[in-house]
């Protein structure tokens, strides 16, 4: 069979025509392919492969100038910077590129007297190709370096996270590591957002945060206490205006700070907060419908349960009702109330108030409550006045907010304008009104334990708590207390929650040796409310105004010697 030969020039006319057609077809195919490639390349250059081209362009132009996004800023609720990232200059060398090492070292030590010659000699004689001499140099030092004209030095641009307010909200802000990655606080929780260059606006109010810290610190010093925590929170939406944990630290020196100072007592530390828990006991009692405000409980004798004897700090020799149990802070009364509604009801409400679980606050440093859940009568009784239940001060603030916010659950948040999806009702409005009325009496009544918290015009209400501090090696310290106050203002329409805790205050001459919450914490509450209320636009009111009397009930509270007058 004869094969068709493309290179055979001696072809017939018929074959020539066929041959041309084939050549034309091949040429057309080649042209189409060329145009397809050209078209694809044109489009890809112009659009599709832009990222790759961009990177090449960046790299070819100036490798050093190519930077990733600056880490986002953290602001307070008034858009004041709490954390930001700035560019700094670092001093580096390649020892192999330094010609006159001795001269260079002499020049460097003149500009940077804190650099030791011996250390520099070691670094200059190293085999490494890149050595960092100083992580950060000031603009003045930079100019001096340029003027000195030292060869072989490499000045590189780096970024640095700074906290201009030093100690302000340091526990909340947290810190970043050397690579700019969040390692604590909001910096860690919002790391991906901040690394992407996006800002975070907190609900913290810089001014209120400072006042809370200053007053708490002052009282801690006065009572030679180990530390403390203070919280001011919006009672309606849970936005935290201030959250202080003392001792604290300068956020710029996170790595140099002792662990003890890094510990966040407000959100991570769990404590038995004593009689402040009686508020919850009273709320459960009203809500269970088993007890009403007129039922009385005999508190004249110590209560013996199993091997334990429950006493009162301010003993009364007559039977008292729930408002009086709270105002006089009777452990016996509280235990008897709890006995009536029982362990299951108690645990149900503790759970729904969020006191059995960790909070969903926007920082990683959160404490998990510890509660005795053996359902024994003794445990139910002791939990009712805050023993056998360890929670964070933030848990207490949250539960207080729920009680005064008409029973609608309040979840604390550190983010401004966060919208709460659920509207979970924990206790009824009626119970909430009763509780608000009683809380006000704790402060305003002459028999109340928080009389020193009365801030004229701001209708403060709340509950004090004094508890023996837990000894980590078992049992309780007999001479170490945790003192606390939780409350709200103004009580006729609570706008803000205030929760204070002080760790191990010592009795002082001016306090007649007392180290109870009424002496230690209540005075801060008064000062704090007086100072922050105008900033928070809470107007002073008269207790006699209809706005007050319409919103609260008037319970009669008997004194120590008024037992027969009920």
């Amino acid at each position, binding site marked *: 069979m004869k094969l068709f030969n493309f290179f055979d020039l001696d072809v017939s006319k018929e074959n020539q025509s066929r041959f041309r057609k084939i050549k034309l077809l091949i040429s057309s195919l080649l*042209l189409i392919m060329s145009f397809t490639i050209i078209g694809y390349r044109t489009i890809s250059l112009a659009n599709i492969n832009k990222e790759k081209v961009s990177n090449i362009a960046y790299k070819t132009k100036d490798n050093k100038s190519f930077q990733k996004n600056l880490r986002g800023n953290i602001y307070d609720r008034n858009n004041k910077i709490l954390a930001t990232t700035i560019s700094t200059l670092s001093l580096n060398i390649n020892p192999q590129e330094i010609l006159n090492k001795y001269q260079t070292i002499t020049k460097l030590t003149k500009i940077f007297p804190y650099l030791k010659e011996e250390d520099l000699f070691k670094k200059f004689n190293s085999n490494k190709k890149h050595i960092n001499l100083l992580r950060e140099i000031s603009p003045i030092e930079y100019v001096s370096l340029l003027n000195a004209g030292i060869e072989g030095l490499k000045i590189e641009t780096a970024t640095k996270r700074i906290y201009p307010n030093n100690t302000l909200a340091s526990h909340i802000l947290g810190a970043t590591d050397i690579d700019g990655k969040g390692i604590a606080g909001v910096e860690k929780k919002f790391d991906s957002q901040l690394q992407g260059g996006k800002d975070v606006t907190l609900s913290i109010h810089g001014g209120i945060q400072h006042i809370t810290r200053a007053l708490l610190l002052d009282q801690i010093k006065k009572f030679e206490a180990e530390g403390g925590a203070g919280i001011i929170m919006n009672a309606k939406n849970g936005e935290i205006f201030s959250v202080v944990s003392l001792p604290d630290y300068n956020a710029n020196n996170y790595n140099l700070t002792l662990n003890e100072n890094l510990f966040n007592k407000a959100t991570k530390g769990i404590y038995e907060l004593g009689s402040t828990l009686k508020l919850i006991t009273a709320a459960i009692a009203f809500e269970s419908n088993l007890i009403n405000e007129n039922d009385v409980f005999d508190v004249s004798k110590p209560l013996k349960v199993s091997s334990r004897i429950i006493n009162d700090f301010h003993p009364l020799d007559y039977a008292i009702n729930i408002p009086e149990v709270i105002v006089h802070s009777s452990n016996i009364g509280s235990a008897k109330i709890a006995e009536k509604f029982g362990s299951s009801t108690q645990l149900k409400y503790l759970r729904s108030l969020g006191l059995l679980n960790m909070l969903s606050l926007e920082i990683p440093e959160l404490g998990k409550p510890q509660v005795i859940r053996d359902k024994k009568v003794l445990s139910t009784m002791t939990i009712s006045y805050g023993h056998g239940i360890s929670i964070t001060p933030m848990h207490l603030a949250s539960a207080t907010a729920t009680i005064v916010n008409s029973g609608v659950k309040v979840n604390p948040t550190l983010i401004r304008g966060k919208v709460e999806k659920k509207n979970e009702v924990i206790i009824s409005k009626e119970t909430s009104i009763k509780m608000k009325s009683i809380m006000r009496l704790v402060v305003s009544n002459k028999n109340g334990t928080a009389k020193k918290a009365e801030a004229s015009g701001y209708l403060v209400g709340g509950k004090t708590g004094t508890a023996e501090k837990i000894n980590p090696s078992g049992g309780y310290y007999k001479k170490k207390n945790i003192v606390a106050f939780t409350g709200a203002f103004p009580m006729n329409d609570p706008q803000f929650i205030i929760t204070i805790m002080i760790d191990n205050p010592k009795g002082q001459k001016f306090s007649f040796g007392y180290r109870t919450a009424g002496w230690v914490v209540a005075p801060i509450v008064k000062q704090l409310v007086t100072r922050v209320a105008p900033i928070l636009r809470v107007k002073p009111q008269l207790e006699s105004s209809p706005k007050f009397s319409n919103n609260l009930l008037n319970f009669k509270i008997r004194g120590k010697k008024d037992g027969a007058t009920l």
Partner: protein
Amino acid sequence: MIRYPSSFIFFVILFVGISLYQIKHFITKKEIELAQIQNNIKSAKSDINILKAELSYLKRPDRIEKIALNRLGLREILPTDIWDLKDLVDITVTLNNGEKK
């Protein structure tokens, strides 16, 4: 023999080739400009951050408090400074009624 269609295609290819080179050059140039602009933005942002941080440092609540107390002679606001006028009228009425009784 050179045919017109072939020469036309040759010139088209030549034109497309030159255009492609121009486009590539143009895009590279624009990318470099873009990179510079983005770096300038980052640099400006960093400068703004420094200014904001300095402002925040100067407006530190503890510093403002010291200035307000020691230099300006200011003091904390007391409830009597901001009492609602209507409430004051109520107090006066209450007091007057008390005196009459």
